[in-house]
């Protein structure tokens, strides 16, 4: 067992992990942060995306030990302390960017990473950035629309089918 310490959503967190403990397992099972979802567990679906030192990563494909000392951000840290949604979450709600919601934590975290580097992405930018996030409900149109809206752009002309 190895001791790991990291900052998760601004709060210090630590625990004992095995070498094989995944970051997703550490967050969900040891810290109880079950907002990070594990869909495929094969690094394809992106439901487990979190930020490590500001970069989007698939937490099912990173060892917890590799995140020792890092700043980790998960979906639980996106809303304000009073529960009010951030701009991306609010846009997903407003534009119906989810149906079952399973992929949503990863979608929101990927969107946050995109908008940090590219505050006014084109529709094509958004679609390319979401290449590693799968949604089996929405057909993506409303997710793209939500992210475009969260960036402050007019989405009235975007595809609605």
């Amino acid at each position, binding site marked *: 067992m*190895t001791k790991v310490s990291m900052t998760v959503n601004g709060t210090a967190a630590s625990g004992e992990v*095995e*070498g*094989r403990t*995944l970051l997703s397992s550490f967050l969900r099972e040891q810290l109880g942060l079950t907002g990070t979802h594990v869909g495929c*567990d*094969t*690094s394809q679906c*992106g439901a487990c*995306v979190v930020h*490590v030192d500001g*970069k*989007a*990563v*698939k937490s099912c*494909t*990173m*060892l917890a*030990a*590799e995140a*020792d000392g890092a700043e980790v951000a998960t979906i639980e840290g996106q809303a304000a302390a009073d529960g009010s949604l951030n701009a991306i979450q609010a846009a997903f709600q407003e534009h119906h960017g989810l149906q079952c919601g399973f992929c949503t934590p990863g979608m929101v975290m*990927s969107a946050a*990473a*995109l908008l940090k580097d590219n505050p006014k992405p084109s529709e094509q930018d958004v679609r390319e*950035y979401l*290449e*590693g*996030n799968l949604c089996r409900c929405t057909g993506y149109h409303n997710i793209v629309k939500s992210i475009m809206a969260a960036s402050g752009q007019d989405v009235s002309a975007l595809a609605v089918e």
Partner: protein
Amino acid sequence: MYNFEYEKPSSVVDAVAALASDEAQALGGGQTLIPTMKQRLASPAKLVSLSGVAEMQGVSADGGLLTVGGAVTHAEVAAQASAYPALARMAGRIGDPAVRNRGTIGGSLANNDPSADYPAAALASAATVVTNAREIAADDFFQGMFDTALDEGEIITSVKFAVPQAASYQKFVQPASRFALVGVFVAKHADGVRVAVTGASEEGVFRWGEAEAALSADFAADAIAGLSLDPSGMIGDLHGTKEYRAHLVGVMTKRAVAAAT
């Protein structure tokens, strides 16, 4: 995934020492290794993380030579390798953004997946793979599917690319996995053109000699119009037949020549 011992050295010397034990395996970004271990296709007794080795970080350009540290991620190459735009674009299209934030150049080259992008870039660029022990020319490095010239416990510490006069990488992606069904990296150097193909051959990445000769004489897409590749030895699977891949190599080569900058 079976359990293993985890070690995170901070220098190449310590990493080499850590890898000297039985069944030890180097860990780059883990984007191939961790899924492989989950499937129990690999079960090392110890993983030696290279992410804490400062001397394997960084991208630098100097007099037509681009040097990329072995632990540099694809996202970092995409953002920082502006001295070699075709390489930066190639790195920016590996996998997806989250994978690019973890996967490393050293890990990709050491794994030598027959559909990986970096082997084609390294081979077409006549890159030099620098390890803790020696320098290996790309022409000698790749030795067949998942096989390289690396010895047990040898670590890729950096890769040196001679920046070509013009280059382009064109990838036809397999739509489910996003890996290259066929990818062709064309690089025009002062002493001739190199064409490296990934995704197509059962032997892994290879150079297409006939196309290199034709393009060295005339660097235009039409110069290879009459050439074709022998489909025997190509990968044939449910995503494409041998003949299809052989044909695609020609198509992607022409596109790469047309797009080369």
